[in-house]
């Protein structure tokens, strides 16, 4: 079955949300997820002659194959390709605040935030402070220890315990592999 623009449009109408969710959950960044989703479908059209299936199910699997490839490239290179988007003469605007929140909602990022917030609330002030300095401000353990007036060993222990608490708070959100 050869794909044409109508086929790609139809697949986009039905599956753009799934592909967006796929990227949002893996990158945790709504702008990146939208870029990757757009490039995936643009590439699907540009490379449509490569599709060798004979039914819609195969086409969906093929599109997710492109999506995984795009995700791999993003993780390797740190930026999103837009070659197929540009080849089609398209542009992708920036994400408005409502769209940003909607992508987060679709990806269940809000539930992750709630889980992380719940985990943070369980921590003592001392553990929360250690975590903030280490993870958010990316301080080294010697710096952290000096800032908090504790030994380096104690600093490591506090951060480790805080991370374990957060991991436990979010472990129910880990998912099995997505659509093949």
């Amino acid at each position, binding site marked *: *079955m*050869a794909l*044409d*623009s109508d086929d*790609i*449009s139809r697949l*986009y*109408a*039905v599956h*753009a*949300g799934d592909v*967006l969710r796929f990227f949002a959950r*893996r990158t*945790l*960044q709504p702008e*990146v997820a939208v*870029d990757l*989703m*757009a490039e995936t479908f*643009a590439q699907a*059209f*540009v490379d449509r*002659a*490569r*599709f*060798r299936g004979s039914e819609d199910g195969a086409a969906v699997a093929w599109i997710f*194959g492109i999506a*995984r*490839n795009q995700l*791999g*490239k993003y*993780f*390797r*290179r*740190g*930026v*999103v*390709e*837009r*070659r197929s988007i*540009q*080849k*089609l*003469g*398209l*542009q*992708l*605007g*920036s*994400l*408005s605040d*409502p*769209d940003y929140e*909607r*992508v987060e909602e*679709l990806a269940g990022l809000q539930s992750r935030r709630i889980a992380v917030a719940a985990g943070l609330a369980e921590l003592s002030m001392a553990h929360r402070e250690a975590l903030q300095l280490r993870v958010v401000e*990316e301080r080294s353990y010697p710096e952290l220890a000096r800032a908090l007036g504790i030994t380096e060993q104690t600093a490591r222990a506090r951060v480790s315990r805080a991370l374990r608490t957060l991991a436990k708070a979010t472990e129910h959100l880990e998912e*099995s*592999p997505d659509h*093949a």
Partner: protein
Amino acid sequence: MPESNDMPTIVQTFGAELAAAMRAVERAPKARNRTRVTLAALVAISAATAVVLFAVLAGHGSGLTSNALADPLARAARAALRQPSLFPHDDQYYYVRTEGTQPVGMSIGISSPDVRAGGPGVTATETIIVDRWQSANRIGVQRTTVAALHFESADDAVAWKRNHGVKPGSTSSFRLPRSHGAYYIDIGRYGQLTRRQVLALPSSPAALYARLVPKKAIARFLRRAPAQVRQLEAEYGSLKHYIASYAFDAIASSFEQGPMPPALRSGLFGALALIPGVTNIGNDQDLAGRTGAAITFTDPHHHILTELIFDPQTSALLGIRQTSTRTSGGFKAGQVVENLSYLNEAVTNHLTIPHTRELH
């Protein structure tokens, strides 16, 4: 279009624009078909080349070491077998540091209310350093630091700052999800090979090439999808060029991903030599200024020339450079679309920067 009460507006808008762009492409006059190479001729050429090059790589051949393409690739293939394995276990991390440049049209994180109609709001080239820890069964991390920004004009620099574009020195990190035991080697089913399956892949160049270009599947495709074959011929110039592009992309992508067993690395260097259109251009420098052997391949459909720069003494991939060969899609002919250097790599058990083997 996606349900309007579900999808963000940008998704709906893009969908409509994509549909219009696709229809415009389909209505445009088609390129004329070029001469078709029959499948039989393609396989015969590939098989003959495979036999000759396999003999060279196995050290039995003589008089062919002056082969301009085979020599650096053959040396890299032999060198790969002498290197310690950097193929991690499922619960280990493969760590790599890269330095890369990218035109800003492909950058992220910029909110630009000044985007002018018909073009990007600002033009810049970002140099980024990426530290990546990836694992099959553990959550990894990718940390990106903006090392430098280069603007094409002073106006762009002003607009960038006004729109709160990223600054040099800024760092962002995010988690890399575990791949649930899958390795992204593009030989066979992409993204779905387990460690055991990767280790079971053939290591001879001819066998790897046969997996990339399976005769029976191609023959079936030719019989059952003549319309698609015609389209591929129109886009790539010939089916031979399409198959070569496909094979080159698969191997280059697998090298970029990084971790693979030494025998597979060796075989893939050999398989590169079997692909029609792969050219040895002698030595070249990567983004980091290191000199290595360089091979190129041009994708005629996407108008991109890809250059792989590697050290034939150690088989290390030093860098990848991609250049637009035609003015189209926002790129000028000769413009470097991407320039990436691999600086360090290691297998590690922790999310720390290990003592690494500096590449080259």
